[in-house]
Each structure stands twice: as C-alpha cells, then as structure tokens.
C-alpha cells in the first residue's frame, strides 16, 4: 500500500517566518508534487520533481521553493510566509511510467497570522 506522509497536519506560523513542509513517500516513486488546495479553486500545482535534485515550476510557484535531496523526500519551503499563503498543502507522488495516478498525503493545513 502506497504511503505518502506529511510532517504536520496543522501548522501556525507568523508572517515573515521561514516554513518547511516535508513529504515522504515509501513507494520508490520518481515523481513528487506539491499542491495547494483552496475552496473553489481545486488543487493548484506549486512545484513538482521528476527525479532527485530535479524540480520544475508548476502553475503558482511564486513565494515558494522546493528541495529534493533524496528520492523519497520532497520539501516545500516558504522563504517568508505571508497571510495569502494560508492554505491546505497537499503532497503527492506517482510512478514515472505507470498510469500517472497520483497518491496523496493527508495534507498540512497552514495558517499564517
């Protein structure tokens, strides 16, 4: 059974803080993704990675960066958190050549005050 875990379910940070969101998958998937989920907007892709040390911008990368030093781990970094980054953040992973089905983590609800 594929498992994608995220470091926190709930997080509260202050404006200007640096925030790290961690995601780990245990299925040796090549692809990993970070989305934010907002009511009425669905899931919007922030960044994705198709291999270690590789990263690609998604649709809304501004204000975020990512790191993929190991295959199983994909980190999302908010360099200086702002209130408009209050959201639910979802991590997902998929096998490169199989089905393109994505497996999702439980999400991190981040509140920036």
């Amino acid at each position, binding site marked *: 059974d594929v498992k994608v875990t995220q470091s926190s379910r709930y997080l509260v940070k202050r404006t200007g803080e640096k925030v790290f969101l961690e995601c780990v998958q245990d299925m040796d998937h090549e692809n990993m993704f970070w989305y934010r989920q907002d009511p009425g907007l*669905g899931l*919007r892709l922030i960044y994705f990675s198709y291999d270690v040390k590789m990263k690609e911008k998604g649709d809304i990368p501004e204000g975020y960066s990512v790191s993929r030093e190991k295959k199983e781990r994909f980190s999302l970094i908010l360099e200086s958190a702002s209130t408009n980054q209050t959201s639910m953040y979802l991590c997902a992973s998929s096998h490169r050549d199989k089905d393109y089905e994505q497996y*999702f983590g439980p999400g991190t609800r981040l509140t920036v005050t």
Partner: protein
Amino acid sequence: AQSVSQHNHHVILSEAASLELGCNYSYGGTVNLFWYVQYPGQHLQLLLKYFSGDPLVKGIKGFEAEFIKSKFSFNLRKPSVQWSDTAEYFCAVNLYTGGFKTIFGAGTRLFVKA
C-alpha cells in the same frame, strides 16, 4: 490554455437519489482522465480512471464515469447515493504538452442527507 471545469460547486441529494457530476476539459490532444474523492478528514484517493478502450469505466463504491470525446466530457455517475458518499469530488485530466501534466478541476462538494 488547458483547463478542467466542474459544473457544480455544491450538490445536495437525499439518500437513494441518482448522482451525476459534470466535468469538461479543454484540450484537443490525447488525455488520461481521473476522478478523485476526498472524504471528510481523509486523503484524496482515486475513484476511477480512463486511459483507453471502453469509454464507460467503473470505479470503486458503485461509481462510474463516461468519456465522451466529442464533448470533451468525463461525467461521474452513481445510480443511488448513500450518506457515506458525502465528500468532495475532483475531476483531473492528465495530458502531454512537452511533458506530462495533470490539471484538477475546482471540485464539487456533495452532501447526502440521511
């Protein structure tokens, strides 16, 4: 630009009612199509998928979806909903534009009255 539209943001049904959630996409090339479901407090999980072959696909928990290529649609159906189907449903399209990309719709919140 490619996009995925879900027609209803909120749907309220009584138990045993039939369900149809609309999903349309804008892209002229080959697509892979998905419906994901997120039950309250749970992960997003795959409900069903279409890659090729029979355009009527069956998923878990009695759900099915029909791909109509001429209408760029992939509507989700269930003949008789249950209270436990209360969830948010997301349509997603995987397409190739120089690299594979998955686009999600805005989601439809379904509430089933017991």
